[in-house]
Structure formats: C-alpha cells, structure tokens
C-alpha cells in the first residue's frame, strides 16, 4: 500500500518521537540534556546526577542523589541465572553479545512489568558488573565483588581491575559516561522506543538497543579508530598512508556525522582530556585529524568539519585502561541511562510505532503446487 508520504530512506528528517530528554542542535554544535548544555554538565556532574536528570527532568537534591547512589550501589549483584549464563558463554565471545545475553537473563520476569524508574536503576547498575566480570573471565581472573562505597564510575574500574583507580582516571571515566548518556533520536534509542511502543518490558527495550548499538554504523566504531591509528603507525607517515588509503576508498574512522554542522561538543571535551591524559595517542591522533579534515575538505568542500565523538573517545578510554573490545560496551553502560529515560517517556505517552512499507514486489499471481515446480 502506498503511504501518505513518500519513502524517505533512513527516515532522515522524519520526526520519530517528541522528547524532552535530549536535543542535538547540530547547527550550533550543542547537545542539550533536559535544557542543560552538555559542556555545563560534563565537568561538574557525576553520572548518577545525570542519570537522575535524564529520568526525572531535573537535577537531584543532595538527599535524592544520596538515595539514588545507594540504590544503584545495592543493585550491582547479578542474579544466579545471569551468573551461570555469563560463565557459560565462551571467553572469546564478543563482549557486546555477552552484554546483550546477560542483560536479557538478568531482567527476566515472571509477569510483564511496566517500565519504571526502579527497574531503570537496576538495569543501569548491572551493566558494569556484567562487563567487568566478563573482562576478568577473558583474562582468566576471578570476578571481583562490587563495592557499595564506590560511585558508579569508580566501582566499574574497581571491578575491572581489582583495585581502585586514581581520582583522575575515575573522573575521566565519569565524564565519558556523562557525555555519552544520551544523544537525541539515534538508532539504538529509537529501537528502544519502538519496542517500548508495543508495551513490552524495559529489559526487552534495552536488549534491543544493545543489539542496535553493536552495529558499526552506530556504536561499533571506537575500536576501529584505534585499529586505524595502529595501522598508520607514526605521525610522520600519516599523510602518505592516509592519501594512499583514500585512493583505495578506505574510510577514515572517527569522522562524519549526519547532524553536527560544527565541531561535536562532546568531541571537543574529549579532545582536551585526551591531550592531557594520553599524550602519545594525542600526538598521532591530532595529526591524523588534521590530515583527515584536510583531505575530506578537498574532496567535499561543501561538507562541514566532522570529527565525531568516537575519535577522541578512543584515546580517553585507552588512557582509562579499558581494552578496546570494551569501548562499545562501555558506551552502552553510559547510554543505558538515556535508553531507559526514553523508554519511560515513550511509555508515558505511548502509541505503537508501526510505519508503513512500500511494496516493490510482483503483482499478485497464483502459486504452483510443489509437484509441478520444475
């Protein structure tokens, strides 16, 4: 059946939802959470405060923040079934598949429950435990029990490494988690909202979102940035390598974005952090960025400057000490706050999301019985 409107590939420019959670103001290079510009939140706020903001629409009071932090801290244990499932998955499994599977077990229910803030808190609390436990399994190490006295970012690093990280490292991870916590109607958030629109449960929405984030066109590229920089090797070789690569139609990893017309505000903050925390990475990366932007500008002078959030994320996450296989899952551990906020918003103003398709197959005809099909 023909739709009321023409088919727009990728739904580009089509409004998929109304939201008060975050806004990407691409023209002015602003990312806004509930009215606050990201640059005003990134340095000051804990991930817990920002999660509260996304869920509740306002910043918490001291008492509210204390209550939320305590609830998150007490929800970090995995269920027995989730522990068994995590143990059963082979150590060489893609961590995103582990996350998808274990989040699914952790959230199983006996009766359908409506998405709620307590459920959002529980899910958000479990992501670091799942990732750290699997990381240690890969390394042949025993899992580390979560620590209730540590904040969200600090506990994640503690469970990964078995020891506390320095305040600077914890602060850096916290900033990363704040920066990535929401970003308008991206593909994984939209997936979560489509699932929520059928009145399904929160875990189902999150599992779908993880599946979408896994795709390289969405969350899968930060490790690719590191891999490409490794291939390039050293700053003096960068231009020759990159021009040759371009002739072979190789994509520059960490560049290009559909929305921002000016420098991504998150990339700007991460770039500064990267320069301070990971000078070796920064020396090569900043050179590669400069060359990439020059080449991309030569090819398409009409297109805007386009370093994306993944490019310097890679250097920051590396400095934090996360293995590159855990870059995308850590992105998920941040974005779960935004996903669950969107699910709560969708559930509160729901209508099933069921667009139309344009049929491009043959005209109706009669089937031939099996015996007569040559």
């Amino acid at each position, binding site marked *: 059946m023909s739709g009321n409107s023409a088919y727009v590939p990728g739904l580009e420019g089509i409004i998929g939802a109304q939201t008060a959670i975050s806004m990407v103001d691409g023209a002015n290079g602003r990312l806004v959470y509930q009215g606050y510009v990201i640059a005003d939140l990134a340095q000051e706020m804990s991930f817990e405060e920002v999660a509260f903001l996304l869920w509740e629409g306002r910043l918490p009071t001291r008492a509210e923040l204390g209550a939320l932090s305590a609830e998150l801290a007490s929800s970090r244990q995995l269920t027995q079934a989730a522990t068994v499932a995590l143990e059963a998955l082979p150590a060489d499994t893609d961590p995103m598949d582990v996350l998808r599977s274990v989040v699914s077990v952790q959230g199983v229910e006996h009766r359908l429950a409506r998405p709620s803030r307590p459920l959002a808190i529980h899910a958000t609390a479990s992501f670091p435990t799942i990732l750290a436990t699997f990381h240690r399994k890969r390394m042949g190490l025993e899992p580390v029990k979560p620590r209730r006295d540590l904040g969200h970012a600090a506990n994640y690093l503690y469970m990964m490494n078995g020891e506390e990280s320095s305040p600077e490292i914890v602060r850096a991870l916290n900033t990363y988690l704040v920066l990535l916590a929401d970003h308008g109607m991206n593909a994984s958030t939209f997936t979560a909202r*489509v699932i929520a629109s059928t009145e399904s449960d929160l875990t189902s929405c999150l599992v779908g979102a993880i599946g979408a984030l*896994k795709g390289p066109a969405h969350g899968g590229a930060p490790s690719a940035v590191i891999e490409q920089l490794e291939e390039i090797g050293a700053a003096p070789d960068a231009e020759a390598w990159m021009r040759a690569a371009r002739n072979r139609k190789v994509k520059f990893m960490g560049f290009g974005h559909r929305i921002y017309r000016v420098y991504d505000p998150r990339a700007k903050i991460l770039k500064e952090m990267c320069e301070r925390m990971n000078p070796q990475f920064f020396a090569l990366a900043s050179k590669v960025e400069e060359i990439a932007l020059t080449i991309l500008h030569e090819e398409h002078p009409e297109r805007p400057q386009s370093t994306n959030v993944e490019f310097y994320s890679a250097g920051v996450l590396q400095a934090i000490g996360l293995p590159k296989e855990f870059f995308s899952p850590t992105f998920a551990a941040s974005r779960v706050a935004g996903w669950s906020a969107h699910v709560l918003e969708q559930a509160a103003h729901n209508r099933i999301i069921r667009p139309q398709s344009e049929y491009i197959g043959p005209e109706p005809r009669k089937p031939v019985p*099996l015996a007569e099909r040559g």
Partner: protein
Amino acid sequence: MGEFSPGLEGVVAAETAVSEVDGANGRLIYRGGYLIEDLIPVTSYEEAAFLLWHGELPNEKELDALRQQMSRARRLKDSARKTLMAMEPSTDPMDVLRTVVSAQGASQALTKPTLDEAVALTAVFPTIVGAAYRRRQGKDPLQPRDDLGHAANLLWSLEGREPEPQKVHWVDTYLVLLADHGLNASTFAARVVASTGSDLTSCIVGAIAALKGPAHGGATLAARNMLDKIGSAENAERWLTDAHAKHERFSGFGHRVYRTYDPRAKILREMAKTAAPDLHRTAARTEEVALKILHDAHPERPNATNVDFWASVVLTGAGIPKELFTTIFATSRVSGWTAHVLESLSDLRIIRPASRWIGPEPGRKPLQLAKR
C-alpha cells in the same frame, strides 16, 4: 521538517518485496506476489519460509535440502542450553526465548547476516519454546526430532509424543499465515537494528523484544483470555454488553490496516470449526455480538475481527497452551523477520529519524548540588 505523526502512522519507512498488506482490499501478499489464501492449500511452513527468503517457492529438491538443513540446526549450543537451564522454570516464555536466542547467536566477531543463519535461527525456535514449556511443567526438555517437519517437531518438543497429523496441519497452517505481515512493530525493530550493520541475532532478539508487547504479539493471549472469561456462547451477549458499558476494549478486534475482513482471520475461523468445536461456538457468538456492539457504537468503522481472535481458537484446538501463544507467533514470524533483514542489506542505510524537542529552552545553567 514535517509534522510529527505519532506512531509514524502513514510514514513509509521501508521499501519491501517480502510482503504487502493491502488493507483496502483485505489482501495479504507474500513475496513473489502470492495471496495468502492461495498459498495455504499448497505450502508447508518450510515452503513459505523458503519463499520469503528467496522470492520463489522451492522445487522438491530445494525443499528437501531446506528441511535437512533445518533438522540439523535444531540443537542448542552448550552455552545456550546452560543459560536456558539456569533460568527459573516459571520465567516468562518470551524472556526465555529472547535470552536463549541471544546466547545461541553469541559469536566471537561481528558477521553480516546470512541466509544460513536465518535458516538456523528459524530451526531452533521450537527447541527453545518446547524446553521453556516443559520446564514450566516440571519436565525435562526433549531432544528435537530430526525426522519430523517443522510444525510436527514443534508439537513433539512440547508434548514428547508422536503428534497427531490433524494438529500438525493446524499448527503448520497457523505458522504459514503469521510468517510475515508488512512493516509491523517487531519487523520494523529488526530492520532498525539491521540498519546499523549489526548481526542477525541482534536483529531477531530486538524483534522478539518488540513482539512481547501486549499491543503486538500479546494480543492472541488477550483474545483467548477474553473468551475464557466469557465462557460460553450463551454468556457472550451479557458479558460483552457489560464490558462495553465499562469502556473495556474487546480483545481480538480492531486493526490499523485492514478495512475489510483480515484474510488470515477468515482462514482460521473456518479451521476453528474442526480444530476446537466448543470454543468455536463461543467465539462465533462472541464475534457476532462484538461486531454488532462495535458497529452500533462506531458505524463509520470497518469490520474488525483480527487474526489474533481466531488464532487463539485454532491454537487452543491444536493443544498449544495459551501461555505459549506469543512464542508460537515468534516461531512463525522469525522467517519474515530474517527475510526483512536480509532484504535490507542490499541498500543499508542507518534508520535514524529526527525528534522534536519539547523540553525546556536550552541553555539554562545547572545549580551546584549544595544549592539545590
């Protein structure tokens, strides 16, 4: 940027040749251009799945090869089996399905969706659904039967006895009828996940997650629950009149797309007479009364019995416990989901709509914690 259409109603989000819902004429067209009522007499579920994947009905040799491939893919991996056994037996069967499919498809490296993966995923659903059911009954899961067709193996996995041919026929017909239906919410979820370049398992897990919603796959169970409450043909008028007076919705009625009788409901209604004669009597009277009440209330709206209503009767007759209805729906629809994902690969573009900001004016300054 255009107007916001809630639910993306009327927005065209994909081009597809997998199926077409022609609501105005009450037609469901499967890939290749076949009307559903023409396929039912001549195709098994395996043939319908082949059609959705390939765009043509299989010949005998191709069908035989597909059946063998599916038989071989029915077993769970060790990690998926352990995950299955770790969950409490009373876990929602849809959550079992979502989780075990995720574990079964967990892999070392990202791969592009393939037809072989689609076949394997489709083949393993009955194993998981059967195991979930048997564990609820306090019984051990069964090994799948290599010598049975898809529908028969599904019944075997539940019951552990040689399935009756008639029941196999009813289940097989149901599976063919529900295998695809345009761009519904779960199929759309699968296509959105696919659009990021993700793997097939992630797409199918997302689709199961969407199908679980009562507004989508849960509707068959809701219809059966309503029939259970009504209890008998004699009670239908009183029950429905009361429910309508209390502004309760009638489960199994209403559809956004069809303007005439849903062609799948028509086939199932006929089949229900032999599959479940007693329940059919209650259901037929319920339908008659419900349509009259709905017509009196909204004469401008079309005839609205949906597929869930009559599917609930036929599945009951085939001996499927009602708590499995949504998982059986998924067991059918997985061939459509995978066909859509595979189709979308030929012109992959990330599906990322815009959103309209309805929050506070950007730029307000956050207060320090101590000042809040």
